[in-house]
């Protein structure tokens, strides 16, 4: 019974329950679409949260990894005729190797310098996708056939929902493993971590690769789902959007990443009635949240509930 109440099992069960009953409340294809988008964003955010929230390393280039996955899959299936799932694995492997190669020099940097390096890397990847139009179709994007066995939208809902549950489960387990503890030590103080025998570089590289692969897989699945991809997927703004989701939901909280992704995916859709003021209000909500809930939504609310319990 105690086990049920820990976030590792309890939280996961709640998430599964929400995913299971949600379709009953969604009464048209658009709402299902939004749910699927939330799942996609949440998966990337979970990966990114491992890097930002637990290892304390910022990445402003995660959109580029999503883009690599998307274009890797798109190019291999559309131009080379590869099987979509094989393409997805190939794209994820490529992204993982790339992350591994660039992680060592990049993760030696700290603070603003690390942010700048990941930002630069993201922009380079984005430029390559934009200009190699023989391969990528350039700014007009490219069309890709989907997965033949996924015939309806609700299939996608269940597939991506399942991937999300798996991601949350994997992330929670990782955090509660020796690796997770080592990562939090790195976040707290790298020097202290090294003194107690944590190979900080190795762990940082590992988590960078893991979060890159998360992003790449989402990119691949996303391109099979929407059958179309344009370069803005790898763009700077997409990267920022992902970081905002993680910070908004709450750093170092896996469920925070999920909630952040959910709210920031729904919010722009709800605000469309404001037309010209949409972006203004959106920015205002973000600012107010960060001022009054600096730890992010989920950790702050969790603290509030905790206080409520005690009194």
């Amino acid at each position: 019974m105690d086990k049920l109440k820990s976030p590792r099992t309890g939280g996961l069960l709640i998430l599964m329950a929400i995913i299971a009953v949600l379709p009953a409340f969604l009464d048209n294809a658009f709402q299902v679409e939004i749910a699927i988008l939330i799942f996609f964003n949440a998966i990337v955010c979970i990966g990114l949260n491992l890097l930002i929230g637990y290892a304390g390393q910022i990445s402003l280039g995660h959109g580029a990894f999503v883009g690599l996955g998307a274009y890797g899959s798109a190019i291999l299936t559309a131009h080379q005729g590869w099987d979509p799932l094989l393409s997805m694995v190939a794209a994820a492997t490529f992204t993982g190797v790339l992350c591994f190669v660039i992680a060592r020099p990049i993760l030696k940097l700290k603070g603003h310098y690390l942010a700048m390096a990941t930002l630069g890397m993201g922009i380079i990847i984005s430029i390559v996708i934009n200009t190699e139009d023989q391969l990528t179709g350039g700014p007009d994007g490219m069309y890709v056939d989907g997965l033949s066995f996924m015939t309806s939208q609700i299939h996608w809902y269940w597939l991506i929902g399942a991937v999300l549950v798996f991601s949350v489960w994997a992330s929670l387990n990782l955090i509660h493993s020796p690796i997770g503890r080592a990562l939090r030590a790195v976040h707290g103080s790298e020097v202290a971590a090294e003194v107690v025998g944590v190979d900080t570089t190795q762990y940082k590289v590992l988590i960078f690769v893991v979060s890159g692969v998360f992003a790449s897989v989402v990119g691949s699945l996303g391109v099979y789902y929407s059958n179309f991809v344009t370069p803005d997927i790898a763009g700077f703004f997409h990267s920022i959007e992902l970081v905002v989701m993680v910070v908004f939901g709450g750093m170092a909280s896996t469920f925070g990443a999920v909630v952040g992704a959910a709210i920031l995916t729904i919010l722009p859709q709800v605000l469309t009635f404001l037309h010209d003021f949409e972006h203004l209000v959106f920015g205002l909500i973000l600012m107010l949240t960060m001022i009054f809930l600096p730890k992010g939504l989920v950790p702050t609310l969790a603290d509030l509930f905790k206080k409520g319990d005690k009194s």
Partner: protein
Amino acid sequence: MTSRQKGLKKSLVALGMVAGALAVSASNAEAADPIKIGTFLSVTGPASFLGDPELKTLELYIEELNKGGGVLGRQLELVQYDVGVDSKKAITAVKRLVSQDEVDVIIGGSTSGATMAVVPIVEKAEVPFISLAGAVAIVEPVKKWVFKTPHTDKMACGKIFEDLQSRGLTTIALISGTGGFGKSMQGQCTKLAPAYKINIAASESYGPKDTDMTAQLTKIKGVDGIQAVVNTGFGQGPAIVTKNYRQLGMTAPLYQSHGVASKKFIELAGDAAEGVRLPAAALLVADMLPDSDPQKPVVQGYSAAYSDAYGGSVSTFGGHAYDGLQIAVAAMVRAGSTDKEAVRNEIEKTSGYIGTGGVVNMSEKDHLGLDLSAFKMLEIKDGDWSIVR
């Protein structure tokens, strides 16, 4: 189990309920009394020069139609979403238009990327869709539910080559911007050249942010027998090409694309623009058209209405939205209903519609319906446009 984890659980439940409530409140299944026209445009972001006049035009004319009693005795309602230049946003917006707002027709898509991204959705949902984007790929091959109003870059190439032929020029050089527009048009021109017996003897390109193209032009100057130079691209690049061209003392005729068909180009290129030719829509030279031109009253009318309502001068992009709306409304009137299949069939039968883009004659095989006469060949004289006859 700690109280913190308990709290986390509670907050999750609360958030789940909030999300659920949002999803429910977002759905409003009211009876569709007005005719719903859906649109998704690049109103903000780098392509807002397309989306802004398009949206303003749709709003202006829908209001006007409603004042005049609407269409089929029903009022029109515009449902619009701003999608920037993000194809993912375009996909979400169109899914919302077809499955939540249940619009009767979609007129929109400022960029080719956004349009191509939503084609699979529109085809599946079976909603008539008139795109406002340029690429040929939108209507070639023909897709059952997809139409478009703007001229294609292939037509611009054709118009330029036709003019070259009439001047007896056969050997040319291409200089192209590497942006989406410049690249696409370069490809189309290269493909089309043999059909007009045009020989492209040199092809150079420049980046979107380059500030000097003398190197590329010097190379072209060095190639023997170049009789004309064609520049594909838009933005400030073509203006710099034009200036460098004169600085190098090159005298062969210089052609620009319809992408620079705005007064801004003449301002930027200054005196160097004298004698430059380019294909452009009639809208640009509304007042210069001969009175016999059937397009004259249409383009003058649109031009005046737009300037009265919003100030400033019209752009061809707003004109595309005007044409899209008129074609859709005319099709509904002919169909006598908003039945999607019937409206689609009537849009396909559009013939002899005189719009800002030209005379539209659609068919089963042609979902654009414009021919080369839709373009006027212009020459810049004394800092203003003049029509080449």
